[in-house]
């Protein structure tokens, strides 16, 4: 092997300042206002009068080095060698003169990039690794995002909605994506308890921590087998035991599926941040296009678009009309699974005589 350079430890990331475009560096902390100029571009104006134009494009998040280098070529040609990524994995190109905007957008369009994601529409989908790289994935994430955004792409590039709609996909209930506080989100779920591989468990797992991992105390010791047993009626298939003990696999191709949760938000605008709540408990896992799931998301999105007031987020719209009306207008079935029986259940029951017929 060729000689390696001298390694360094605990140096932390490179300082961000060296990566800032000059116009950003000059006006750092001195921005006055911004304006959206279209679905995918905006201008920020500084106290000094300087302006920076930003063009945003979609990204699948999973990028090859070849594509990163292509993106770099564009940034070299138009943006003096600078670019950034957003917290939702979009790519942003910034220029310091209005005359540079059109050629940049032209090249991005010609090269097939999808410009959009700014303002009252769908931005990029925050998502997890899925079958591409995760051991606990109940479904794929990249594929679901692709299927979803191929269908809803117009809400990224052109069409507007009452407010922004944050989509997220998590491939299991660990929710490495921000599913628990998103407008509309998908989560991979199990429907059957883990299987215990008694022979393997002795060598692979620590029994006490496996028992302790269960949030419903469904797991207890099985001294005869030097293993554990599961009280099936207590198990709600979270898979936390499998995270701790590989000898308790929970993946079940026939029964794993997708749940849809809606109405969450992280911003404090108008109303407080909200958790997402269950809209659809289970849809079949149907790669590569997940047609049932995509159709259900479109239905929810379009019902929101038709019913919400300007600036209302999905959760604000549902709270105004009431959840009982949400199920009515979307036509989604309300099932036993929708009634909470976990930690915070009591707070979710209707302690009032007021509801809509």
């Amino acid at each position, binding site marked *: 092997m060729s000689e390696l350079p001298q390694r360094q430890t605990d140096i932390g990331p490179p300082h961000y300042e060296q990566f800032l475009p000059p116009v950003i560096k000059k006006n750092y902390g001195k921005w006055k206002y911004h304006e959206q100029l279209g679905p995918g571009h905006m201008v920020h104006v500084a106290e000094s009068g300087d302006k920076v134009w930003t063009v945003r494009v979609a990204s699948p998040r999973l990028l090859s080095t070849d594509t990163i280098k292509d993106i770099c070529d564009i940034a070299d040609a138009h943006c003096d060698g600078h670019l950034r990524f957003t917290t939702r994995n979009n790519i942003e190109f910034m220029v310091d003169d209005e005359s540079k905007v059109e050629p940049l957008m032209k090249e991005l369009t010609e090269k097939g990039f*999808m410009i959009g994601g700014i303002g009252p529409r769908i931005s990029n989908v925050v998502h997890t690794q899925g079958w591409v790289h995760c051991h606990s994935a109940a479904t*794929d994430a990249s594929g679901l995002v692709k299927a979803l955004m191929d269908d809803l792409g117009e809400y990224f590039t052109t069409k507007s909605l009452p407010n922004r709609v944050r989509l997220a996909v998590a491939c299991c209930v660990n929710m490495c994506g921000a599913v628990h506080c998103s407008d509309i989100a998908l989560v991979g779920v199990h429907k059957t308890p883990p299987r215990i591989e008694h022979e393997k468990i002795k060598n692979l797992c620590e029994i006490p921590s496996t028992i302790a991992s269960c949030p419903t105390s469904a797991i207890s010791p099985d001294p005869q087998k030097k293993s554990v047993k599961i009280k099936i009626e207590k198990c709600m298939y979270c898979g936390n035991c499998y995270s701790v003990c590989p000898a308790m696999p929970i993946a079940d191709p026939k029964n794993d599926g997708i749940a849809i949760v809606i109405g969450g938000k992280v911003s404090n*605008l108008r109303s407080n941040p909200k958790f997402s709540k269950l809209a659809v408990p289970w849809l079949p896992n149907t790669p590569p296009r997940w047609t049932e799931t995509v159709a259900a998301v479109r239905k929810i999105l379009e019902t929101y678009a038709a019913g919400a007031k300007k600036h209302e987020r999905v959760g604000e719209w549902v709270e105004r009309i009431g959840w009982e009306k949400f199920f009515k207008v979307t036509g989604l079935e309300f099932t036993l699974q929708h009634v909470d029986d976990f930690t915070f259940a009591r707070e979710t029951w209707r302690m009032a005589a007021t509801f809509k017929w």
Partner: protein
Amino acid sequence: MSMKHQTPLLDELEKGPFPSFVKEIKRAAEHSDYAQDLLGLLELSYKEKVTHWKHGGIVGVRGYGAGVIGRYSDVPDQFPGVAHFHTVRVNQPSGFFYTTKALREICDIWDKYGSGLTNMHGSTGDIILLGTKTENLEPIFAELSSRDWDLGGSGSAVRTPSCCLGAARCEWANIDTMSITNEITQHYQDEMHRPAFPYKFKFKVAGCAVDCIASIARADMSIIGTWRGDIQIDQNEVKNYAQSGMDIQKEIVDMCPTECISWDGSELKINNEDCNRCMHCIAKMTKALRPGSEKGATILLGSKAPIVTGALMSWVIVPFMKMEPPYDELFDLVDRIWEWWDEHGKNRERVGELIERLSFTRFLKDVGLDPQPAMVKEPRRDPFFFWSEEDVAK
């Protein structure tokens, strides 16, 4: 290079307008055996509807217990290229700004030693280099660190802090999120790279209550910029909004959650004492309204996803903290919280869950924070409260 495996299901996802991750893997497969076999393995998952990755093993670079996620396939004979497919987490620069020179450098290292596949970025914020062999980890780390890049956090450690772009390009930034994030990251290098906590600990820094980094939902400590004092109003710009078609009564006044705004057609008035700083009016009339001048942050604690006992959002523990370098007040608070968590936390118990288990009152007392109404939505409903020795008549 032609593709080694037939992938009819994945090929379907090369079609359609949204950028395709399958195309990305295929591009990498032109020069990477890892990516060739990843396609085969992923196609198998699409066919069987089940993952083919096993639990991570313990792999890493010398002297670090974090930064690399071990990953092994459960079908190594069928797809030897991804028998080992470890992830390297590289700590991103605050705000996700790059020069093309820096990105190309990382790409070149990754083409030489890894799959050529990345995530820009991972859920926590790191640059994710997706898939390499154990023997390549040291060379990758030497190449990266000699060019001033370091690894991020993983396991029961401080996870790579991240932030919105704040003052770099946003007029709403009440705090310098990128500086604070960089300082936190540098201050806690040891705690990031050598896991010694009960479980993970995440920091996210947002410049305002819009919270583009989702700190309130996704960070054990959420630092959210805010202000004290009056919202600054430019009445001429308010009129411009009205003239250009904004229905100020409906879109601003009626949507204010505290009903502290009025508009008579020529002047916008805000009763600042009643404002809860939600950001709606400022976000909708960004040319006309600006946050008040005394800037700082609200510190919140405890959020996490639903595993294990249900999702939590962070709640207020310090209503207002000035955020200026060297951030001693913040570091002092963090150290006190960690000491308490270290002392009482169970294995795999997040700090928010520990507070739920032992009580918020006990946390406040032990960590030395004075109770304030801003910390609660409402006072308790029950009559079951504790007193201490000194509160009781002898």
